[in-house]
């Protein structure tokens, strides 16, 4: 980066300067923790708590991190909340454009997943990432779809997806209980149980969460629901040795 303080270097410093390599990779500011999602027979279920952490401060306790896009698609987002809001604006506009075209073609989860992968990978390749991990899910051609994209552009599809600490805490639990013919009620219980253990063991988790369900009947987000924790072991712990 040149060191002389010419007008040119200032005016283009923020948006698209070409003097030297871009150094815009940020640190996330307000962040959300894990998103969980599971595919059941007939749809997908999502869980994401309602906390926007400001470092270690539990600052914003009513952030919705699940987004309904249309009756067949939903996303959940972890990481920088501002980057999620930026994506939300763009994707919601895409959904509105779809309705305006009025050709019965709306954003499908598979195409949204593909689009997000390209956007996130390209931004990271310019060293200017959107610091988010997105879970895309919904119904496509009558079957459930679930996909993952992270800030590097790593993308995959799986019947069970959990981001961040959820991948280490909730994924083992969900893998134990999953079957291809899982019912909606079982999937909701799986998300509930996982959100409880996440609240116990993730230091940036919260006891309130949103539950998103996409089926052939449509897409709905319930919440905020509350985790029912069990602290009865506290009476068994006394002293440290």
């Amino acid at each position, binding site marked *: 980066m040149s060191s002389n303080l010419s007008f040119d270097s200032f005016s283009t410093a923020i948006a698209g300067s070409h003097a030297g390599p871009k150094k815009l990779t940020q640190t996330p500011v307000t962040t959300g923790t894990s998103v969980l999602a599971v595919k059941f027979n007939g749809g997908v279920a999502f869980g994401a708590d309602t906390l926007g952490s400001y470092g270690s401060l539990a600052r914003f306790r009513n952030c919705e991190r699940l987004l309904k896009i249309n009756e067949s698609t939903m996303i959940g987002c972890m990481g920088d909340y501002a980057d999620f809001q930026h994506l939300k604006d763009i994707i919601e506009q895409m959904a509105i454009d779809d309705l305006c075209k009025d050709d019965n073609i709306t954003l499908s989860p598979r195409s949204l997943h593909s689009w997000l992968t390209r956007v996130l990978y390209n931004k990271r390749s310019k060293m200017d990432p959107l610091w988010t991990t997105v879970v895309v899910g919904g119904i496509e051609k009558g079957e459930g779809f679930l996909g993952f994209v992270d800030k590097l552009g790593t993308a995959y599809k799986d019947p069970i997806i959990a981001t961040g600490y959820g991948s280490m805490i909730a994924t*083992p639990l969900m893998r134990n209980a999953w079957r291809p013919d899982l019912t909606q009620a079982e999937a909701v219980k799986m998300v509930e149980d996982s959100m409880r*253990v996440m609240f116990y063991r993730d230091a940036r988790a919260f006891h309130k969460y949103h539950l998103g369900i996409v089926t052939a009947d449509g897409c709905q987000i319930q919440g905020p629901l509350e985790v029912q924790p069990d602290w009865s072991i506290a009476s068994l712990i006394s002293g440290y040795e």
Partner: protein
Amino acid sequence: MSCEIHPGGFSFANITRNANLESMGFVAPKALKTGTTIVGVTIADGVVLGADTRATAGDIVADKNSEKIHRLARKIYCCGAGTAADTEMTTRSIESQLELLRLSTGQEVRVVAADRLLKQFLFRYQGHIGAALIIGGVDKLGPHIYCIYPHGSSEQLPYATMGSGSLAAMAVIETGWRPNMTEAEGMKLVRDAIHAGITNDLGSGSSVDVYVIKKEVADVRIHRPYEEVGIKGVRQGDYTFSRGTTAVIKTEIIPITVENEEITQMETD
């Protein structure tokens, strides 16, 4: 106690010399870590300890069947995660200190004594001894589980997990643990927790070891292995062809006849 405890921790006098050696190209060997999933849970009148059996050196599995549950006393055992040499030598050292304690007091050693000796030893080395331990045992005061970290802190808990697979195992235990479980329920919970670690964590693998220590049972029940999880796949195809696959039309045997023998001395100078 009659044994001598070394007064200080490690001496770091060679740090500059070692840094120079590394900059000149010397590559220090990778520590053998146990990767690991270890758990300990309390049941109705005892404890159940579990561990996987994979020891890694970087990305390679160095030992497919390592023993991660070490004896400290007749009814006190210790699971170890972290650097394999550190867990082995630390537990061996404290095992002998506990035996001397038992002989000098004439009483069965208590689990809290093992906890104190281990944490005071590890604290003296300020975390440089990479031993993360779960002690489980039964004494006259009941069953106990203690969790000790490499820097020397300890916790007394109804259940504990350590190692790289600890989050997977803890998720299973948080879902399934209840106070006063039976031996069978405890063993199943421990097996499920280690299994979650083995299948979800790359640092853990192979098989599940389960040790059961109960108040009224004189000996510790050792199940090693309790279950083999990482089984090498059975080959489904076979490329050996049986005799007769290719039809034999004609057989001609030509013996080799020796016509002439000649001996030549080899030059050996």
